[in-house]
């Protein structure tokens, strides 16, 4: 490897250093009991992550963590939840991410 190639690789790392992939976005729960958008409704959200090194992951507890976090942010009626599952790529590792959003009617 010569200097030019090392420079090119470093530049490439800088430019494309972190890519992402959204696998799924799911929304549901706007049922007949759903309240219209008013001042008493607000959107709450919760994030959780799991870092995976070299394919080794031993649980998926971060999903439960996001759910518990979302529930703790709304003390009224939590309706219409959306869930986004994505991955941020990295060098020999990656980070799985869950983003949950809901409409809180208090």
């Amino acid at each position, binding site marked *: *490897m010569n200097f030019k*190639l090392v420079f*090119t*690789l470093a530049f*490439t*790392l800088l430019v*494309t*250093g*972190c*890519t*992402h*992939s*959204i*696998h*799924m*976005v*799911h*929304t*549901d*729960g*706007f*049922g*007949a009991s*759903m*309240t*219209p*958008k008013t001042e008493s409704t607000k*959107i709450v959200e919760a994030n959780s992550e799991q870092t*995976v090194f070299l394919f080794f992951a031993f649980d998926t507890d971060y999903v439960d963590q996001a759910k518990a976090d979302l529930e703790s942010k709304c003390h009224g009626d939590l309706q*219409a939840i*959306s869930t*986004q599952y*994505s*991955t*941020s*790529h*990295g*060098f*020999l*590792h*990656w*980070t*799985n*991410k869950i*983003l949950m*959003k*809901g*409409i809180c009617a208090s």
Partner: protein
Amino acid sequence: MQKLILVSALLLLGACARLDHVQIGDIDQSNGALSPISVKVSENGVEMAVVAGVAAELASQSKRNQQLKEIRDFLALINMGPRTGNPVFFDTYAQNVLDALYQQCASGKITGIRNIREGKTYGPVSGEIVRIDADCIL
């Protein structure tokens, strides 16, 4: 040069739609008339390792070919992880679909929600799409 033109033509002609995930929820037709609503967000995706691989195949000099292959391998190493479609550089493009859907329906009552993850691919480049189609109960 002929190789480049041929590959470019194949990439342009090879544009394809891709469906990754679809899911539908309850359909309530008993609480009023339904009006279709939709939210669609997208981001440009590119598979840099494939781009470097194609460039390596096109390179006429063996030294340049080798360098591009090393870049391809390096890119594969620094972007490890599961992927749906091509990777994107920003992962925030789909964060506001819930709010956008809610705003389109004055009653707030939405049924028949279809969650769709799809893409339009042009070789190593693609449009990565998240689309939510639904019906607003009027």
